[in-house]
């Protein structure tokens, strides 16, 4: 990441907001479209004040139709605008699946490069916020299999700013996932001024040599908490924040695993067919003989995310204690 002289402390909501603001300021082709992003300023107040400053032509409160939100953005992008489409909650992205997977991701390939689709689809995802069955889902595994798409899921304000800036300038469609739980919970130093972080580059959030923990989103913070706890017990844990899910950073993962020889993959999303599956399969292909222990996946249970009652929610979510326990076991292995 380009380091800039001074920094500001902000949370993840502010990081998204300031990045969108800068993009609107610098590029007249940038247009935001979504539900309640105008007068309401988005349900998390991310776009508050944008309508007044940039006007209804650039801050478009759309009809309640996700297929159109994404599909119209695809058309805008093909015609040279830089649309940033918002899906109010990731749970409601399904009606846009046809436009994302069938159209946006295929535009360049289908036309052999005659048309391209430079657009961003932003959406808040994830649980632990009492969002019940329809405001808690993780969607990355439903999209990461799709050629033509890029997927980003940052965990910190600094990463959000750098990656969202890159995503907006990327020549291809990017699905940008923002974990709801981190929106106000996570604060951090953010370099002032413009900087970018390349898509497809993971970040070692904590170096270590005893074992490697691979995660992303909210759980990065839980994993770091657990990893620091284990330092006290003499276990050195390296925590890798994937940040990008497609493309994914093989180099950083392999380097770490060759060093630690033990891997724990942690994600909130359901386990079966989740992101962890591909990471594990890749490691077996490319680092089989570097592994001292079976790759362990600590993931969401295979049930719909996520019951409303806090008892159900906390059963679904993985605490840093459970993560620490899994790390201990793997370290002992």
């Amino acid at each position, binding site marked *: 990441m380009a380091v800039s002289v001074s920094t500001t402390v902000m949370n993840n909501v502010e990081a998204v907001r300031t990045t969108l603001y800068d993009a609107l300021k610098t590029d007249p082709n940038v247009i935001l479209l979504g539900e309640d992003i105008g*007068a309401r300023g988005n349900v998390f107040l991310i776009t508050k004040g944008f309508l007044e400053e940039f006007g209804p032509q650039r801050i478009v409160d759309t*009809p*309640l139709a996700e297929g159109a939100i994404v599909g119209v953005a695809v058309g805008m992008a093909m015609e040279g605008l830089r649309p940033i489409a918002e899906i109010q909650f990731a*749970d409601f992205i399904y009606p846009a699946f046809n436009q994302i997977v069938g159209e946006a991701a295929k535009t360049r390939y289908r036309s052999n490069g005659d048309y391209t689709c430079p657009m961003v689809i932003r959406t808040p995802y994830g649980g632990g916020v009492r969002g019940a069955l*329809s*405001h808690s889902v993780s969607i990355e595994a439903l999209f990461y299999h799709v050629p033509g798409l890029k997927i980003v899921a940052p965990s910190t304000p600094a990463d959000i700013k750098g990656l969202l800036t890159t995503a907006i300038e990327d020549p291809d469609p990017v699905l940008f996932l923002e974990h709801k739980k981190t929106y106000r919970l996570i604060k951090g130093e953010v370099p002032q001024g413009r900087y970018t972080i390349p898509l497809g580059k993971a970040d070692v959030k904590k170096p270590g040599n005893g074992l490697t923990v691979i995660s992303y989103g909210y759980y990065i913070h839980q994993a770091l908490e657990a990893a620091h706890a284990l330092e006290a017990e003499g276990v050195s844990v390296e925590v890798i924040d994937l940040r990008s899910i497609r493309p994914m950073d093989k180099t950083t993962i392999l380097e770490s695993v060759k060093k630690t020889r033990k891997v724990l993959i942690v994600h909130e999303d359901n386990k079966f067919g989740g992101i962890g599956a591909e990471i594990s399969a890749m490691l077996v292909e490319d680092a089989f003989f570097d592994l001292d222990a079976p790759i362990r996946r600590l993931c969401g249970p295979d*049930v719909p995310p996520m*019951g409303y009652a*806090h008892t159900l929610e906390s059963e679904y979510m993985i605490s840093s204690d459970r993560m620490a326990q899994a790390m201990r076991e793997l370290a002992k292995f």
Partner: protein
Amino acid sequence: MASKMVTSQSRAHVPQFERHGLSDEQLVWMLRNMLLQRTIDNRGFQLNRQGKIPFAAGSEGHEGLQAGAAVAFHKGKDILAGYYRDLGLFLGIGVTAEEALRSQFACASDLSAGRQFPHHFTKKSIGLVSISSVIAAHCTHAVGFAYAIKYRGEEGRAVLCTFGDGATSEGEWHESLNFAAVQHLPIVFLCENNGLAISVPVRKQMAIDNVSERAPAYGMPGETFDGLDPIASYDAVKRALDRARAGDGPSLIEGKVHRYLGHTTDDDDRTYRSRDEVAEMRKRDPVPSFESFLIDHGVLDKARLDEMRKDILREVNEATDRAEAEPLPSSEDLYTNVYAGETQPWR
């Protein structure tokens, strides 16, 4: 009619009114339903302010439409595919106050076993279809129920499918109406048009004034009525349901209502509408309007009204206390009913 309700001359004597065959008992029942809905709504917001529940959504302003629709609905026969803002309708067809409060507290005994948001009920025993939070997704299901009714030749049954003005923009809404029209199914599409989709005003939702103007696009009868007026609402919904039950096919009808509260407790509506706007709407609040209408027309007297209010408060208080005392789901409950039996992704 709603406008008539509040005119002073109607207070002068006891004038007749078009009651569309509604008995005094039914009219009083409707008012009670409206008061109960509002009391439970307010309880939810209250419990949320007290930090006892994380979330609540209210239907204030929809009471008239829903009370009318509830009477038109044939309990034990018809199917209701409703949405989250239908508390009055749900109560009206057989959801109890205690079930409502259990949903607010996410009790293990909640109809969804504490899995869904408050008021996202499921109650097959009374024909209430499991509520989806996904806007318009239930409209296709409603059509499937109507298809089954027609396929089995079940006489005098119909499906009532309700939704908001925002829902009409969804592709699945269009697909549902078109499918029902082509198959000439026994279903009523009832739009509760409160002019807002969270913050988005209906003029940003569609380029026409009334949702019912879309009925001809499907070859259906369409009608817009005053959803603040329980009697007008009953009349419109009943005529449409009767058409459906008689095999005369689907209808798209629309009641114009108000939304007095924020979208939910998570929404601060001051960011997108002025207090004056809301105050202006409140002047036509269906609950006090219908109270005075019934009193003015000698259907109800003040004393009985106070009695009713007390009675409802008692009912809701008891329901609150009982629900608050109920156990929450156990952690094991997270894993049940994903499939029939114990299916795991790996076996």
